């Protein structure tokens, strides 16, 4: 199972909020209500933190441009409304005391939603590195996505939706507490006020939609964002099924991508970085690109067949194969150039070498009809047919095509 995506965390938060809005009509006690209101305040705070991030990237725009239709201004207004909602919830909580709180299903649901939203923000923040001066720099290839208007539009839309969900909960709780013994009538007023401000926050977040509407692509991107975490090494263990091969290839590619993203200012001379390592890595990368060409062409030939990729994918696969072929040629030139250079130290000692080796072996075992494929000619085998029948797909898993498309982006 892969790591959680931002979409999964948002979906989980939304599910908890939906469940929390099912407030029982009667029998509410004072302590659970206090606990739920406190969790709702934390939830509003969690939503605000997302807006802080949107505004942090657009501070100059917010100060310099007095245009209410921009995403940055929408974020500022939504954040102000959420701050007011938070104040109302604080007042509601104060209205009924500060007792020790016991566990309650209603508060627990809200607490789960808070945890999901906080985890989601932590996930997004793994894609940037903040230095001691507070300047953020990219830490993954997803960073470019996080600064696009399409992503911000989708994020503001999500904040609007979740604000409405919390508003629905506040309204339901306000109704449910009417006439309940031990719950002062001012609490209802504060909850109604929170409901009002939460709806205003949603409307403010929606305001930028006229200029920057949410697109299906933006929503897809938002939901697909993974954590920028480096997976553990996955050493080869004999013949592996297709799904395991694909998982291992993806893990090696992620580890290599993380290794090449060291900031330039942290670069230093290392005796581990030998000419032999560079040359071997360039050679292995050329081999990986060549095997990607074989895989992609094999897939392109099967477009439109039963169980194969759709016919519309033929040109895309052919173009991707052509790009991989070009990459292969370039890497061969790099390898040839390194054959003319030497370093003081020797050996295959560079940190990326084991992952590159695992990746090439797994890719070979995916591309060729030999589950124990190795680069030696004695193990050479024909290019494997991709699993096209339903039975074969069930056996191999459906990860074959995504795996090949991932490979073309490596390293």
């Amino acid at each position, binding site marked *: 199972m892969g790591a959680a995506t931002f979409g999964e965390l948002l979906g989980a938060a939304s599910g908890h909020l939906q469940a929390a809005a099912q407030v029982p009509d009667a029998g509410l006690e004072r302590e659970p209500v206090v606990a739920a209101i406190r969790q709702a305040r934390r939830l509003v705070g969690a939503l605000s933190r997302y807006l802080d991030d949107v505004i942090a990237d657009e501070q100059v725009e917010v100060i310099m441009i007095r245009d209410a239709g921009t995403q940055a201004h929408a974020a500022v207004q939504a954040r102000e409304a959420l701050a007011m909602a938070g104040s109302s919830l604080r007042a509601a909580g104060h209205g009924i005391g500060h007792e020790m709180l016991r566990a309650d299903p209603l508060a627990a649901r809200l607490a789960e939603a808070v945890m999901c939203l906080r985890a989601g923000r932590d996930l997004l923040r793994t894609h940037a590195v903040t230095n001691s001066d507070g300047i953020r720099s990219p830490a993954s290839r997803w960073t470019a996505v996080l600064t696009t208007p399409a992503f911000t539009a989708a994020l503001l839309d999500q904040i609007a939706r979740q604000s409405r969900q919390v508003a629905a909960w506040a309204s339901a709780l306000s109704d449910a507490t009417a006439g309940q013994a031990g719950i002062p009538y001012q609490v209802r007023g504060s909850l109604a006020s929170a409901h009002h401000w939460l709806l205003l926050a949603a409307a403010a977040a929606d305001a930028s939609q006229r200029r920057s509407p949410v697109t299906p692509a933006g929503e897809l991107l938002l939901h697909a964002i993974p954590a920028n975490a480096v997976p553990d090494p996955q050493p080869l263990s004999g013949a592996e099924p297709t799904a395991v091969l694909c998982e291992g290839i993806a893990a090696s590619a992620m580890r290599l991508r993380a290794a090449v993203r060291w900031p330039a200012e942290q670069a230093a001379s290392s005796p581990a970085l030998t000419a032999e390592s560079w040359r071997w890595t360039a050679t292995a990368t050329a*081999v990986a690109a060549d095997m990607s060409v074989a895989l992609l062409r094999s897939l392109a030939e099967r477009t439109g067949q039963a169980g194969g990729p759709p016919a519309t994918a033929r040109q895309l696969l052919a173009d991707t194969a052509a790009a991989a072929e070009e990459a292969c040629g370039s890497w*061969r030139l790099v390898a040839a150039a390194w*054959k003319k250079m030497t370093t003081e130290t020797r050996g295959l000692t560079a940190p990326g070498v084991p992952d590159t080796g695992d990746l090439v072996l797994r890719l070979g075992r995916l591309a060729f009809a030999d589950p124990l494929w190795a*680069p030696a*000619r*004695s193990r050479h085998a024909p290019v494997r047919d991709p699993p096209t029948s339903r039975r074969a797909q069930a056996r191999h898993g459906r990860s074959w095509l995504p795996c090949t498309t991932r490979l073309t982006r490596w390293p």
Partner: protein
Amino acid sequence: MGEIDRRRRCLEQACGLAAALTASWDAFDLLRAICQQSGHGSHELFAAYAFAAQAAAQGRTIIRAAPSLPAGHGAETGAGECVPDDLDELADELAGLARVLHGCLASAAREAPDPVDGAACADAAIQAALVCELLAGDR
């Protein structure tokens, strides 16, 4: 295949450490040049040829550091010779050359009076064995 045969004969006839190093350097250089320009027409054999070129280049680099390699050796040769269409036949020829090269270097490593020469020959012999393993047809 004339050039491959010629280099193999040179290795077999090399007499003394300097001659063995010279013949080995030439053999590695030919292996590197031919492997580098071969194999990209066949997905099945590309990896074997590419990694063999890498190992041959490494072997050449190691030999270059041997103190007893005569001065003036170590320059780039051309692109080798014309590569035949049959990549399997070519691989067999190259594996054969690498096998002889390994034997020559292993012998030179044992007999080298200078330990630095000996270590270079031993390390280069490992690369020759790797080229042979990558290109040989039998499992």
